[in-house]
């Protein structure tokens, strides 16, 4: 089933002579369970595409269907619900809310989704467990390392069981070990069948994805599948062989 269907999406900032064409007609479909890495130099439009995919921004032209729903036709209120239920967002700079415990941060989307307190707590604890932070639930963001904060952010993104997990350079601000931690979490989620779209400019990160898309000047110039949907991604030469064996 197609989770994401982007049809000829364009995005123009400003108008007239000063207009900036961030996206010049992007066509992209992502199936359920896929793990897509979008790569590109800065200014290539990958962040713009990400914001449109996350319903944080609206395209200038073209259509964007999420789970078969035309996002362009939705009003503010429905967009908020959509962001809440269908999309989990992981940012480069974590974007946890300060002075709120990890648990409260993870509970936040559920609170806005109208989930009852007890159920909320149960699900938030489960999500934190999933990212390996069950022992840090009461810590506030400033008491956590970068890697831990990002894992809290991942927990927050997946606590609503969204159709789509979007990650905007999730390891951009992390050291090698934390990067490995976070990517490990994403790998496991992918293995569980979660649809993930991630932006990165690191080949190491992109290699873990099942499909790599390269953007240049607002256009897709490369769309390469490295592993079939529904299968673990290729990690190394050995993995590649084993994947072929299957």
């Amino acid at each position, binding site marked *: 089933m197609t989770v994401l269907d982007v049809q000829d999406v364009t995005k123009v900032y400003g108008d007239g002579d000063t207009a900036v064409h961030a996206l010049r007609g992007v066509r992209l479909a992502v199936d359920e369970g896929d793990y897509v890495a979008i790569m590109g130099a800065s200014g290539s439009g990958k962040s713009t595409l990400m914001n449109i995919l996350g319903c*944080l921004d609206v395209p200038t032209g073209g259509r964007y269907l999420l789970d078969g729903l035309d996002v362009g036709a939705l009003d503010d209120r429905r967009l*908020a619900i959509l*962001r*809440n*239920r269908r999309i989990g*967002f992981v*940012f480069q700079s974590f974007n*946890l809310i300060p002075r709120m415990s990890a648990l409260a941060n993870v509970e936040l989307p559920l609170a806005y989704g*109208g989930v009852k307190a007890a159920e909320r707590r149960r699900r938030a604890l489960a999500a934190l467990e999933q990212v390996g932070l069950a022992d840090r639930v009461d810590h506030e963001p400033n008491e956590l390392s970068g890697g831990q904060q990002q894992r809290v952010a991942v927990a927050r993104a997946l606590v609503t069981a969204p159709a789509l997990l979007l990650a905007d350079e999730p390891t951009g601000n992390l050291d090698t070990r934390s990067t490995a931690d976070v990517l490990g979490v994403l790998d496991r989620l992918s293995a569980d069948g979660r649809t993930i779209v991630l932006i990165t400019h690191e080949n190491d990160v992109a290699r873990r994805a099942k499909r790599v898309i390269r953007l240049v000047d607002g256009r897709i110039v490369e769309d390469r599948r490295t592993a079939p949907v529904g299968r673990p991604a290729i990690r190394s030469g050995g993995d590649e062989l084993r994947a072929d064996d299957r």
Partner: protein
Amino acid sequence: MTREVLRFALRGLAANKLRSGLTTLGILIGVGAVIMLVAVGNGSSQQVQKNIERLGTNTLTVMPSTAGGRGGAGGLARLFGGGGAGGRSQQTGPRAQAKSLTVEDARSLADAANVPSVKSVSPVVTSSSVNATYEGTAHAIQQFVGTYPAYFEASNDPVARGTYFTDDDVLNGRKVAVIGNTVAEDLFGTVDPLGRQITVSGVNFTVVGVLKTKGSSGFQDADDVAIAPLPAVQQSLTGYGALNQIVVQAKSPKVVDTAQAEVTDVLNQRHDISGSNTADFQILNQASLQSAISSSSRTFTVLLGAVAAISLLVGGIGITNIMLVTVTERTREIGIRKAIGAPKSAILGQFLVEATVLSLLGGLLGVAAGVVGSQFTVLGVRPVIVPSSIALALGVSVAIGLFFGSYPANRAAKLRPIEALRHE
């Protein structure tokens, strides 16, 4: 979700305790000032009302209209120090032949056929600063009043100890007197004055009663007074000339104005006043005096309230200011909340609740401050809290929170998540 929004708001306030506290202080001062100043205005107006009530109820005071002549007289003079302080006056310009008020005038007013609305009439003569002695102790009585017994009721001068003098005393010209508390204390000290004699200009008056304390008002002591039968005072102090005033009591509050008209008619006739002639007497109407003064004291209260309301407004602007700062400061947080699916209403609610909690808290503390402050006497006025001012001030403070918080809250709610997230 409402509960969550409330919790987020409280958390936001708690995160900036000093700032929240100072903003609350602005509202506190505003609300406290409203309650307290309205209480002061109300207290002073009640004080004035009480002073007027001391003059007696349903009373008309007829005075010769040579304003300020004959040394201020009677009840009014005792309160306002010099007669003619407001009330209704029928005198302007010169007149052909001014006649003074006489006992006959008073008698004609007692005729029920002409003045059906009048209950009693008391002719009054007064003499001020009268020296009285008792066994070597001297005291200058501020007002020595000669009148009829009906005066006591009309001018609201009840006796605390002893008795009033009677019509019989008046008819026989007996030298008896009812004295005020100040006179009793100054002349007799601890001795019981009843039955004792005081000497006034060589004439002995027997004290038969002591008036109930009225208290002082302004610079005049309402208790520095002695009241004696009219003939006795005329004989010994004032002579048998004109009256200083005639105190007329109407039958009920409703007919005071009717009584005034009747009295005016009778006196016009007796004094040959008609058409072009200007009256040579004036009538002070307690009721109209009261309404004139209460309307002016209402203005005073409104003025005080308005001043206080301005400080409440300033406090409200303080809320807007601080909420704008808060929204700017937390733009990124708002962006995050929106990105993870907070609906507009939740953001709006959060900041509105923050503003309202600030102003409500300030309002409640302000009520406490206002109530406590009103327990003290301010500039000689004992504040009397108006309960509705508490409700109003609280209501207004909540409304201020909603009103002044709505602009920043709207701004927060309208932020586009993508821009809010980029905000540093």
